[in-house]
């Protein structure tokens, strides 16, 4: 069966520090991968998606970046965190062409202080 792992679960980082959140999927190949963010009082916002290794599409310009070094690995990064980067980050995957099959990770609660 397919599973998705996301870590860490919680993270407190100072302003200006780097960030790396990791997401891995097991039990499938060539998934579409997504990073969403939920800021306080707001809905879920798509940040990045990827249809293959090294292929990243950005939905919202900001100081975050994403990379997909391996087929089932999706990384969300920042060189210098801002206070506004605080929020709940969710990774998700689907099979190509099947948007209805979204499966979400357990999320990372990031607090920038």
């Amino acid at each position, binding site marked *: 069966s397919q599973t998705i792992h996301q870590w860490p679960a919680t993270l407190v980082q100072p302003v200006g520090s780097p960030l790396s959140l990791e997401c891995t999927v097991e039990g499938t190949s060539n998934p*579409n991968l*997504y990073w*969403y963010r939920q800021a306080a*009082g*707001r*809905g*879920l*916002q*798509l940040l990045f*998606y*990827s*249809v293959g290794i090294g292929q990243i*599409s950005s*939905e919202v310009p900001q100081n975050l970046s994403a990379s997909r070094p391996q087929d089932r690995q999706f990384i969300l990064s920042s060189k210098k965190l801002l206070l506004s980067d605080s929020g709940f980050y*969710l990774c*998700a995957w*689907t099979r*190509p*062409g*099947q*948007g*209805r099959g*979204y499966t*979400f*990770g*357990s*999320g990372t609660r990031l607090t920038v202080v």
Partner: protein
Amino acid sequence: AQRVTQPEKLLSVFKGAPVELKCNYSYSGSPELFWYVQYSRQRLQLLLRHISRESIKGFTADLNKGETSFHLKKPFAQEEDSAMYYCALIGGSSGSARQLTFGSGTQLTVLP
């Protein structure tokens, strides 16, 4: 551009009362609509999708293209229904990375 609007951030009903969570969407093509739910300390998970015309945990949702709505309804709310509910839409062509666009969510609280 596609957009999903959930006008109620918070909704409280008493146990046994009917509940309706509102969702309106904006999309130029034929969208696929979904409801996702996140119970306390659990992952976001799919509740139902309009193409399946299914009833999950007593919830139903009908796509009204004329009103561009996809309201979630349950005739008799239960305390275990308390959760955050997200309406979501998928647009885009088949074969592409079909992104979900979420509404801002409605926190449902069912009171005893």
